């Protein structure tokens, strides 16, 4: 018979295995080319389960800048039409296609701002080895603390007078980011190795353009739900529509702190 200890060990192993089973494959070789005959993937992520009422978070600080605007949790944001915000849509594996956005162009470079004592945007996609621009619009001390597993952890201060800083990440990973000074601040940095990624907007909608024709696995990730994949076929100069419909059963009990 198994002892309690052995049972616990087995249970822990099983739980860990289940939690880790869905990490995207590492894919290091991506060759940018010109895509002239690409198709488009459009769609939406919806959630029709119960959602908590959105109430401002009570922020435990006396710093004025954190009280200018009400701060809301971004972990489950659903529109009136069930559109789920902040879901990450990515092609699971793709080795060649359109070039990465210019990391130096202020309009396209991935940016994470610290504004009104929130991270904005809540989810930011960064190609690996590209700089992520960190801004501090608040003029008070913030710290950017990454809870990475594959990448080295970073916990860097942004004192009030430092307006901009760059961070780079070596490996693909979805990383939770917090500020230890303002513990309600939370964001996700999605490190990818290709440019076919999108984050759903306030209506749950997303769009991937210039996708080379072919069959792909399309992956959906959201911090409050288990990941989901769908096989899709993209045809030249055509639009492929994809819907991810989530229900209460897909909801993760504890949320997802590991980015898996």
């Amino acid at each position, binding site marked *: 018979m198994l002892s309690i200890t052995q049972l616990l060990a087995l249970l822990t192993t099983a739980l860990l295995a289940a939690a*880790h089973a869905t990490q995207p494959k*590492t894919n290091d070789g991506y060759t940018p080319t010109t895509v002239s005959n690409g198709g488009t993937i459009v769609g939406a992520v919806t959630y029709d389960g119960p959602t908590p009422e959105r109430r401002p978070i009570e922020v435990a600080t006396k*710093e004025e800048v954190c009280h200018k605007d009400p701060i809301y949790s971004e972990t489950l944001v659903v529109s009136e039409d069930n559109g789920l915000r902040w879901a990450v849509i990515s092609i699971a594996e793709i080795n060649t296609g359109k070039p990465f956005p210019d990391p130096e162009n202020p309009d396209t470079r991935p940016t994470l701002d610290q504004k009104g004592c929130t991270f904005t945007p809540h989810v930011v996609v960064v190609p690996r080895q590209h700089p992520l621009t960190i801004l501090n619009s608040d003029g008070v001390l913030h710290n950017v603390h990454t809870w990475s597993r*594959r990448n080295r952890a970073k916990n860097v*201060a942004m004192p009030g007078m430092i307006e901009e800083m760059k961070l780079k990440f070596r490996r693909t990973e979805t990383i939770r980011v917090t500020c230890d*000074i303002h*513990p309600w601040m939370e964001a996700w940095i999605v490190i990818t190795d290709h440019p076919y990624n999108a984050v759903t907007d306030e209506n749950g909608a997303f769009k991937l353009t210039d996708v080379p024709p072919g069959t792909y696995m399309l992956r959906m990730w959201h911090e409050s739900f288990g990941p989901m994949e769908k096989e899709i076929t993209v045809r030249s100069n055509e639009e492929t529509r994809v819907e991810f419909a989530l229900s209460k059963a897909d909801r993760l009990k504890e949320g997802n702190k590991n980015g898996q």
Partner: protein
Amino acid sequence: MSRNHLRSPCCEDDRKASGRCAPRRVALLAVGCGVMIVALNACLNDSQSIALLDSSSITAPGSRGYALYQANCAACHGASGRGNGVAAIALKIRPRDFWNEPFRYVSTMDGIPTSDDLAQTIRSGRLLGEMPASPWLSDEDVRALAEYVLEFNRLGWVERLSGDESMSAADVEEIASDRVTPLEPIVVSMPSPDFRPSSEVGRSLYVQACASCHGPSGRGNGLNMPLDDRGRQVTVRDLTSDPIRGGASPTELFKRIRCGVPGTPMPAQPALTDDQVWQLVFYTRQLMGRPLGQTNP
């Protein structure tokens, strides 16, 4: 020496393995063994550790570090380095779990200690912590121990990453090694020739980079209540009266301010210039009651 002694019951075996067990604490230890949850936790961890420990030439029985570690560290940090030694229960400050927690005192910008950083902590102990200094160890012994405890940390990463289906065994090994390989340590160079310690400049930097936690006058009463890596609210160091655990010499303070203290909410400060960090060093020392510009610890 075999590792069977680690299996169970662990409290008793931890004591044998370490060969050290403060007599005054024996009674407490007996109680400790009876505390179901503690025992269960410790046993569970240890049974999972054995295969990994044996897989490493650094931690395998027979290595130089093994005997030294069991004799000098295991009583508190546990025979397998998980912070669950027999004496741990009697300590106010929980000993470091080398598998799952970062090391505090580093001289690198990525929070990973160099061999020198670890050697310094092992040699000098933790000021007013419960970790004693070990002046009797030879330099080689201290090095072997530094390597040994860092290996626990690497095995911790192997353990955590191993369940990830998308990673091959080689990926796990590579990433685990990467996560314990420090960057080059920072160079604590002398301030530039035109540097003058200034309370005014120091104070203005302090207000922007430190005061929101350490408080306007350094008393640990800032506007914010930061959390550590385990999500616990920390007591922010009162710079005016608390001992400075990593040491209050200008060089040590420079490293703490520049590199941060991993595991705590104290972040690294990559964006400041060297002279700005020096201003903060001297301002902090002024808060501690040292005359401005005085440099002896």
